[in-house]
């Protein structure tokens, strides 16, 4: 660790000192709000850093829990760290226009590395740290990264493994020296050493660094992010300073973010959302980015930090809700009763109170009591006590899950975005939040809907190009700057809110001509805590079938309480009682789907509980955990065939990839279950 750490005392409660910028906002006379003319001269992230180092010099910019306490760096210290690293980069031979790959979990060092790269005119390319060596090799060779900044031995090994195929690769910089002592250090450098070399060569390079920084304009490349994509090879999305800064500015103003806000950075650094929040908005507004101690401690760290601005994909909210429900199952009858009564009340009036709608006095009072007894402590346990603005995006969230958090008084909203848009396309304004829409166009975004329902947008945040892929750029973005999202949707006439139906290419028609929209049904299934993932098939067929993944935490807990012994995921997934319980969920979903005239054809006729979890390592999901439908359909073709040909069970062998890249195979005999479907009069349903 560097010498600039500030240590609080061991053994004390570890909630970090929020300094003069507590949740209540400003004390001490520093102007927190941004004036809009600040844009002038602030044409790059390094320029924002310099401003922050001046204006918020003594305010925390980064915190990271390390060795059990929150270490923090002020904006002034951050600038020094980044400057030392940038000088070190120049000293190492980084040229303008070079690509620097950044591989690691959310740590201040990697954010510094990104800004240091920008400072010297290079382009940071954050990668998914859990990517396989193959995926990494593709991306690094595609952008021709000369330098890599990574976390530890694991990533160093991975890069060494693939380096023969990387023609431009030269130097690697690592943060954690553990286990690396014996490695050949010709092209391998320690992060702090590079910084030390930079400091030592200060007078040699500082003018060069200043000159490079001066050259950065609004149109210089800010970052390049590879989209995982549900099909095909990853594409490098080039985002300019204009894209990032304009978007960050608009979004921060929309939600009134200021330098007193706190976020927890825990989502993959390679994902555009993390870049916008932890770099774009953090540097624009000057708020503090907190980094967890390790991925496993994220929940504890969330509670200790109590972020005011929070962002998570639906999966995180689902997991947290599942954990709450599991723990309530184990609570004493009195507590459980208390929980049920007050949660029912919260469901009734909570969202209305949050939106400032009129609610009766007695209901308000009862909600207050509930807040004291249940909601407050629960929010505190979840780490949401101070959340002022929370977003979920990436995928549609189950309405019931969404309502649960809203009813507790957490201002959770939805937004709709894409890497190519620097995230924001539509957002929900406070007070106009609904589970089934994604809100109104974000500030500065124009939206157009084509006749086939596909959504197009145009904004300052619209990406520059796909790197070295003019063909894809041309097919996605037209000459006027309109970008095709690939999603189908429509604006609700009375509210002006956008509703997304599905991925345009996933929406299809059944054999009888009715609409097939898999996501709609899958989200209903995923609402059940037992069900982690569902994949619906039926495009062009006469009926729908589904794959289901059980949630090991929820089902495992249930099995424990019911004295059901199991030795493996596979055994639990195939247990008759589990199948019966999943069947009841599927049938309940069928009933609900049957209510919807347009989609009643999407009822699940037969389903199978898969013997393995769909996994990004096996290519079945993207790194952001979206199902790759085509690959799944192809890989499990035998199971789909069995679902349609009426056989009662299917024996199958599946190749799996372990985290270290080794391959293995698992075999299983899966039972296929028939589910009851509702007959809908407006439409013929093939009889089972």
């Amino acid at each position, binding site marked *: 660790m560097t010498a600039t750490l500030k240590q609080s005392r*061991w053994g004390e409660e570890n909630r970090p000192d929020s300094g003069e910028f507590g949740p209540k906002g400003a004390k001490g006379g520093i102007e927190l709000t941004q004036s809009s003319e600040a844009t002038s001269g602030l044409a790059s992230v390094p320029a924002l850093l310099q401003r922050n180092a001046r204006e918020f010099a003594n305010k925390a910019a980064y915190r990271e829990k390390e060795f059990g306490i929150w270490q923090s760096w002020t904006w002034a210290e951050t600038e020094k760290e980044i400057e030392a690293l940038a000088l070190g980069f120049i000293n190492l031979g980084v040229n303008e226009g070079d690509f620097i790959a950044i591989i690691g979990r959310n740590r201040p060092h990697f954010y510094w590395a990104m800004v240091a790269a920008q400072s010297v005119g290079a382009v940071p390319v954050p990668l998914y740290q859990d990517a396989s060596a193959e995926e990494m090799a593709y991306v690094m060779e595609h952008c021709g990264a000369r330098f890599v900044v990574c976390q530890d031995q694991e990533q160093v090994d991975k890069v060494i493994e693939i380096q023969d195929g990387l023609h431009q690769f030269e130097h690697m910089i690592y943060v954690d020296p553990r286990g690396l002592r014996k490695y050949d250090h010709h092209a391998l450098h320690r992060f702090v050493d590079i910084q030390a070399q930079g400091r030592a060569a200060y007078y040699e390079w500082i003018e060069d660094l200043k000159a490079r920084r001066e050259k950065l304009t609004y149109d210089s490349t800010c970052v390049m992010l590879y989209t995982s994509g549900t099909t095909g090879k990853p594409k490098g999305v080039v985002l300019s300073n204009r894209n990032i800064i304009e978007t960050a500015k608009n979004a921060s103003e929309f939600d009134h973010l200021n330098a007193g806000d706190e976020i927890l950075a825990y989502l993959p650094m390679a994902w555009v959302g993390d870049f916008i929040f932890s770099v774009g908005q953090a540097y624009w507004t000057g708020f503090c980015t907190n980094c967890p101690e390790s991925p496993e*401690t994220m929940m504890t760290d969330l509670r200790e930090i109590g972020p005011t601005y929070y962002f998570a994909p639906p999966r995180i909210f689902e997991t947290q809700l599942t954990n709450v429900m599991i723990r309530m199952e184990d609570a004493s009858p009195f507590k459980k009763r208390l929980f049920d009564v007050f949660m029912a009340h919260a469901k009734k009036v909570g969202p209305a109170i949050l939106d400032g709608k009129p609610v009766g006095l007695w209901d308000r009072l009862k909600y207050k009591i509930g807040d004291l007894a249940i909601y407050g402590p629960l929010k505190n346990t979840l780490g949401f006590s101070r959340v002022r603005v929370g977003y979920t995006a990436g995928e549609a969230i189950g309405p019931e899950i969404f309502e649960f958090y809203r009813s507790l008084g957490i201002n959770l909203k939805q937004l709709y975005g894409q890497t190519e848009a620097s995230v924001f396309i539509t957002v929900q304004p406070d007070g106009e939040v609904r589970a089934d829409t994604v809100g109104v166009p974000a500030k500065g975004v124009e939206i157009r809907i084509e006749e086939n329902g596909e959504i197009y947008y145009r904004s300052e945040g619209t990406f520059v190009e796909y790197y070295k892929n003019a063909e894809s750029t041309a097919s996605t973005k037209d000459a006027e700057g309109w970008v095709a999202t690939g999603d189908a949707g429509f604006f609700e006439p009375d509210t002006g809110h956008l509703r997304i139906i599905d991925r345009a290419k996933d929406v299809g028609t059944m054999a009888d001509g009715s609409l097939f929209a898999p996501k709609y049904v899958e989200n209903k299934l995923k609402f059940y805590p037992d069900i982690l993932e569902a994949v619906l098939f039926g495009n062009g067929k006469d009926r729908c079938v589904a794959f289901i993944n059980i949630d090991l935490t929820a089902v495992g807990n249930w099995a424990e309480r019911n004295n059901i012994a199991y030795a493996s995921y596979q055994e639990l997934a195939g247990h008759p009682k589990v199948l019966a319980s999943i069947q009841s969920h599927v049938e309940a979903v069928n009933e609900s789907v049957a209510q919807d005239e347009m989609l009643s054809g999407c009822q699940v006729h037969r389903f199978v509980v898969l013997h393995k979890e769909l996994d990004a390592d096996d290519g079945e999901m993207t790194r952001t955990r979206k199902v790759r439908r085509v690959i799944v359909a192809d890989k499990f073709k035998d199971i789909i065939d069995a679902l349609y040909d009426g056989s009662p069970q299917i024996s199958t062998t599946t190749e799996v990839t372990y985290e270290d890249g080794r391959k293995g195979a698992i075999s299983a005999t899966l039972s296929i279950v028939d589910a009851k479907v509702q007959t809908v009069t407006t439409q013929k349903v093939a009889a089972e």
Partner: protein
Amino acid sequence: MNDMSTEGYTTADGRKIGGTLMEMKNITLSFGGVKAITDISFDIKEGEIRAIIGPNGAGKSSMLNVISGFYIPQQGEVWYQGAKRPQMRPYEVARQGIARTFQNIALFDGMSVLDNVMTGRLNHMTTGLLAQGLWKGKAEREEVENRERAEKIIDFLEIQAIRKTPVARLPYGLKKRVELARALAAEPSLLLLDEPMAGMNVEEKEDMSRFILDVNDEFGTTIALIEHDMGVVMDLSDRVVVMDYGKKIGDGTPDEVRNNQAVIDAYLGVSHD
């Protein structure tokens, strides 16, 4: 082996091993009429990973207990850091810088992981009960130093997420890791591991092996370990002592031991008539 017996050597992967740290000379240990160890001699050099292997009941754990001072051998001498060790109680041995883990985990179940690791710092605390109770001045500084050391080990062994979890609630594999953490907290010159991988699955074994190698590499700790899993032993250790029925039947590098006829007989079985 003769060239190795007096001074240090360099391992195949380029690590420098120092001079003799501990030497067992003609150790014999018996319980009543049962001879657990018969006339065994071997040495442990500074910085090496030394394994003691053998079939069940070969006397491996007894040997480790002799090193840790828990058993007093009837005959033989224990030399440590160049001096003959007088008869000692286990806590005195611990003060000399020998720490250990146990085959059947011996942690304080009701205490948190952090507190368990902190107990490993006991020999590094000099302030008295009263001073620590008042927690002022030196006692406070000492506590902070010890906590820092404990936290570094928690970080090293990647158990941050369970720092405040009571040990009783942890699964077996993690308890083993906490035990290692506590032993490391003592900053031992010699670390004794009694079957660190017993009862673990392949993945847990791989993790534990990685930690053992990293401990040796990062802190330069000399490690003596007992292990059943031959694959693990051969991969990890620099030199191996093989015991059978209380006697030493082999001693050398993993390759030498693997090709030793007596060892093959002991492991594969041979008629004893």
